[in-house]
């Protein structure tokens, strides 16, 4: 394991694992019980304050989804089954089989599906602004039909928070970073186009893990009404938390608050 792999962030280790023969980046920091994190729209250009807060009390393992920055192989995934199996393989290879799992946005849609399909795969599940379900009566916003420059303000309450999360670490090639961000958007679109409905609603009743649903109060992508929809479909014990001042990617807008609620849930 190399050190300083996440854009030079202190104490972050980086390695790669293979999924479908393609390499996927895995970052890791901290000690204690492992908790995985699957990122949302845009993925992660570097380590974030939210991950630091989580790593204060846990061994945080951050595998990059196929096609997201640091990982390849989205072009091999045509169906929902392809995606679910790829994420299962990724979690296993990262050492997260049976561990607690946090997913945000796109990552939450996949985390929930993995928990539904492989019941032993996830211990406790945290879903932050999950995609994957679509209700015609209360449509999810179309993140892929935004005018140039509008996306950051759609996914974060403070647009700079998104830009900081997806930016290339200092010294890295800016053109390449732009290509990587476009690729992350393509990977998410490949999974979720056109409505963000993956059929997850039919599988959510299979989830046996305890679940916490986290919603930014200023989420402009997935309306808060989806929290109760998820809660109804999840038959087990479910907790809903709303985060003031945070948008769709709540962990980027309110890292301390979101990490604190996750610690409280995982400790309970």
């Amino acid at each position: 394991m190399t050190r300083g792999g996440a854009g030079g962030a202190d104490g972050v280790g980086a390695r790669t694992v293979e999924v479908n023969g393609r390499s996927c980046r895995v970052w890791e920091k901290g000690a204690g019980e492992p908790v995985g994190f699957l990122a949302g729209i845009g993925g992660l250009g570097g380590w974030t304050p939210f991950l630091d807060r989580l790593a204060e009390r846990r061994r945080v393992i951050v595998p990059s989804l196929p096609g997201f920055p640091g990982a390849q192989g989205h072009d091999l995934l045509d169906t929902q089954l392809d995606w679910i199996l790829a994420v299962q393989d990724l979690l296993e290879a990262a050492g997260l089989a049976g561990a607690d799992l946090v997913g945000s946005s796109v990552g939450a849609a996949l985390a929930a599906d993995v928990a539904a399909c492989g019941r032993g795969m996830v211990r406790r599940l945290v879903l932050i602004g999950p995609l994957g379900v679509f209700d015609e009566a209360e449509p999810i916003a179309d993140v892929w039909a935004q005018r140039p420059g509008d996306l950051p303000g759609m996914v974060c309450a403070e647009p700079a928070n998104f830009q900081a999360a997806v930016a290339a670490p200092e010294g890295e090639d800016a053109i390449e970073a732009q290509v990587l961000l476009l690729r992350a958007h393509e990977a998410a679109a490949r999974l979720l186009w056109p409505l963000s409905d993956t059929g997850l609603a039919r599988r959510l009743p299979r989830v046996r893990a305890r679940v916490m649903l986290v919603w930014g109060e200023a989420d402009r992508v997935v309306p808060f009404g989806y929290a109760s929809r998820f809660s109804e479909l999840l038959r087990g014990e479910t907790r809903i938390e709303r985060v003031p001042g945070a948008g769709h990617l709540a962990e980027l807008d309110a890292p301390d608050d979101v990490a604190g609620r996750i610690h409280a849930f995982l400790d309970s």
Partner: protein
Amino acid sequence: MKLLWFHLMPYTELPDDFREKNPSVWVDIDSGLFDPRRAHHMYNDFMDELEFASQWGFDGVCVNEHHSNGYGLMPSPNLIASTLARRTEDTAICVMGNSLALYNPPTRVAEEFAMLDCISGGRLIAGFPVGSPMDTCYAFGQNPSLLRPRYLEAHDLVMRAWTTPEPFAFNGRFNQQRYVNIWPRPIQDPHPPIWIPGGGSVETWQWCAKMDYVYSYLSYFGYKAGRRTVHGFWKEMDRLGKDRNPYRAGFLQFVGVAETARQAKELYREAAEYFYGRCLHVDSRFAAPPGYTTEATVRARVESQVVKAASKAIGRYDVAITFEEILDKGYVIVGTPDEVAARLRELALDLNIGQLMMLLQYGNMPKDLVAYNTKLFAEEVMPQISGLFDDEWENRWWPNPMPTQQRAVPQALPESLSQPSPGARLQ
């Protein structure tokens, strides 16, 4: 060279304040602006115009496919092409084309194009566009990350359906069919000529070269803006060792002809400003679905500031909308027959274009002006340029129809046929 008459079929009655009051002419255009009874007249006028162009000797007539689009009223160009197959005689019918990934299963395209080839006696040119982001990804909900693999697979399926004599099973990544065995089959052997409308991607150039298809650059921005792209195409052909046969390449150009230069400017101002001001008023949020543009093309655009500027102009529809600017940028060529002929000759020679598609109707151009433009072009421009390239190069991408004398003559049944003849079998 070949001169083809292209119709986009724009809705001609978008309001004067369309641009100010509506975000987009495409995808989420207000259905309240569409009057079906007015469209009845528009469609019939447009079909009259295409037939008129055929009568005046244009080598081909072109139709294309758009969805949820205020400047393109042909979700199914094949419907229009079928009427042209009946109502025209020796003109090539260029369907430019069917967006292959939108048809499920894609053998539908093989069937309908074969029908058109049969009805027309072998006059079909088969266009296979990937389709614009607005049409394919937004109006039709296709996944931008899967669009190109689906397109390429659909192409393979259609070509096999046309050229395989016995039923076969197709086990594709996206399409599975146990019995592919289309009836009817095309007259043209092995298949109608294939033209690929494309933007400026290197992959499409390479694919056209490999498959020996015509590459057609259908830009609305004319000769000046298209130079870089078309020169890039020929440079790539040189690199791949292909000859410079001008019939490998198609190009689209807006044209307005009149007796005097001054008259031309007066006559075509309104239609041009209507087209560029209202018809190309496209919301930029529908321009770039992630994955639609390949990474190689994205890299090329990001790295080349010049290309970036060009793609910005096209991708975001950052368009000139005053007539003076439209003319200055060369979107539309207007002038006397001699002036237009000179500029089209220059265009054809500089871009090395053998298949020239022209829009002589655009925007809200009234029918009488369309007829005037078409007739004057046919009488006075066409003779000056139609002979270009003919003695130097063979057009291997042109329809090969049945001999005229062997073709059916569409006609109403005479009254005498309404009684069975004495020898007819009655059931």
